[in-house]
């Protein structure tokens, strides 16, 4: 059962994408570690870290695409799941600092000492254990998505309304995490990480491995997403997107379908956040900002929602553009991003990959129609005459 589920996922494009990602996972770290710095093939660590970040964003975009592109739920709060995953990882990394903090407290992270905490808040317990933290990376975003979705989908909050309340959700979390007494480091967030599983987060080797893991996780999630979307469930999802009431009247529980997808998507986003944090070295409440979540929507739209490869390409392209612009002409970045938003919605509503695919599809449809020409029967002839 599972094998056929996975087998179905490995359709042509996905295989190519996964192979490419796995190739990158090996090649980039190899070029970073094994070539001498003056070699033409050398990839500097900061470039690798940058691309590692893009891969996390790509995973976040893939997560959003699952709910938006396939299920029609435009979440403007996916940044919240990303940030929660990031915080879970950040909490693990904070606990790893141990007595090496500025205040040298073996248990309490620096900010807690600074804020006069006497003991570790209950929700910080267990985070010194890697496995526990990784479970939380999935569980916390998943649980939030479950609770939120359970209410929202049951009461059939739809379309724009849903988008707006997801935005309110991430905004509320933004405000909450800015508070010092939440116990997550207030507006400074969590930072000054030392090591992960005993390896220094600064070391080239660790960074290379983190990069490789990001690429591998992205491939895995891509395969899972592909398996989901190519199953009958995936077809139901698209049905929900295009004609929700039809799905309902066919006897499907739309709320469960949405809820499952939303939770899986939130977990993807959580994983992305968890991989992001050790690579950039900080997580702060800014990640909850509604603007961040909206930016994810653009990556997805640019690449092509409703395709799985599209959001990955979109996220990488837009962020590469951002890195370039903010380096070369900082004041133009927002013009470029804003212009991109407008241009994509006006001229490229299907996104890059979507537009290319659509081209193929229409060619195929023509061929099919030509075939049908030969063997059609009476009512169809009439029907087409009526068109």
């Amino acid at each position, binding site marked *: 059962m599972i094998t056929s589920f996975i087998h179905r996922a490995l359709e042509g494009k996905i295989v190519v994408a996964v192979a490419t990602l796995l190739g990158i996972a090996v090649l980039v770290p190899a070029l970073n570690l094994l070539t001498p710095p003056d070699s033409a093939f050398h990839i500097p660590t900061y470039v690798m870290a940058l691309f590692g970040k893009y891969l996390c964003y790509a995973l976040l975009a893939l997560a959003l695409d699952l709910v938006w592109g396939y299920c029609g739920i435009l979440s403007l709060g996916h940044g919240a799941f990303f940030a929660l995953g990031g915080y879970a990882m950040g909490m693990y990394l904070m606990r790893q600092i141990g007595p090496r903090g500025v205040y040298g407290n073996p248990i309490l992270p620096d900010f807690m000492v600074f804020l006069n905490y006497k003991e570790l808040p209950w929700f910080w317990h267990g985070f010194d254990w890697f496995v526990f933290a990784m479970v939380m990376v999935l569980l916390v975003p998943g649980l939030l998505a479950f609770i939120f979705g359970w209410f929202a989908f049951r009461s059939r909050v739809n379309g724009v309304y849903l988008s707006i309340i997801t935005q309110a959700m991430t905004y509320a979390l933004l405000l909450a995490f800015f508070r010092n007494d939440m116990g997550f480091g207030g507006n400074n967030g969590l930072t000054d990480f030392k090591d992960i599983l005993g390896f220094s987060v600064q070391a080239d080797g660790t960074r290379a491995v983190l990069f490789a893991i990001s690429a591998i996780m992205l491939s895995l999630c891509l395969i899972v997403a592909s398996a989901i979307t190519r199953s009958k469930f995936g077809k139901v999802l698209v049905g929900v997107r295009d*004609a929700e009431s*039809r799905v309902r*009247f066919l006897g499907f529980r739309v709320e469960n379908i949405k809820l499952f997808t939303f939770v899986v998507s939130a977990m993807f986003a959580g994983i992305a956040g968890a991989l992001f944090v050790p690579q950039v070295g900080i997580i702060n409440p800014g990640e909850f900002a509604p603007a961040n979540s909206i930016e994810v929507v653009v990556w997805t739209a640019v690449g092509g929602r409703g395709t799985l490869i599209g959001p990955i390409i979109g996220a990488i392209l837009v962020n590469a553009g951002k890195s370039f612009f903010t380096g070369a002409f900082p004041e133009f970045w927002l013009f470029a991003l804003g212009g991109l938003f407008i241009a994509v919605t006006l001229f490229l509503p299907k996104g890059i990959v979507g537009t290319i695919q659509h081209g193929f599809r229409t060619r195929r449809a023509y061929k099919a129609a030509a075939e049908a020409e030969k063997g059609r029967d009476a*009512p*169809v002839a009439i029907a087409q005459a*009526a*068109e």
Partner: protein
Amino acid sequence: MNTIAETRTKSLLYLENVSVAFDGFKAINSLSFVVEPGELRAIIGPNGAGKTTMMDIITGKTRPDSGTVLFEDSIDLTKKDEADIAQLGIGRKFQKPTVFESHTVWDNLELALNRDRGVFGTLFYRLTAEDKTRIEEILETVRLTHRKDEYAANLSHGQKQWLEIGMLLAQEPKLLLVDEPVAGMTDAETVETAILLKEIAKTRSVVVVEHDMGFIRDLGVKVTCLAEGSVLAEGSIDFVSSDPKVIENYLGR
């Protein structure tokens, strides 16, 4: 209503004294209506008579303010939602054809097939030989075999109507509610559709709402005329169309 006792024992669908109002406007007004197993029933009535609203009530989309709605004499439909009711065996075709346009004709039918509709059931679903045969049969019935691999978006209006009927068949309902199936169809398509519905009605109950009197005549079945949310007349087409109230309310306009 002295016949309640008898009708109740053998009805498939039973509505009694059903009323619903929207902002004080009574769209359905003490409507009572019975469909027997295996029956093909036509419903006519002027625009705004409440025909679609009645279907909304039966399928759980709209909750009635008062009244009884029973399926198979025992199941209270007013307590259930759309998905429950569909799973009980009531299929519905919308007034505006509603199919999954970005799926192929085949996928549309596969989705509609009466199989496990849960999240995990669908995630791990595999097309069996039996299901394949069933879909092929339905494709034949709705005359879409040659277009099975095309996107539903590319179908003509009439073909979409048929595809939707095909999806309802795949659902294997005991009762089929069909809202204005021939609106926008050519005459030839209309004739074909009447034949199709009669064929379908051999194995299940069907309720058809239609305006097209020619089509109703083609069906040749018992007709109920609705107006202002309640039943005006019921009987053969000739009986109903000679009823002075019906002429005044509907035909004569």
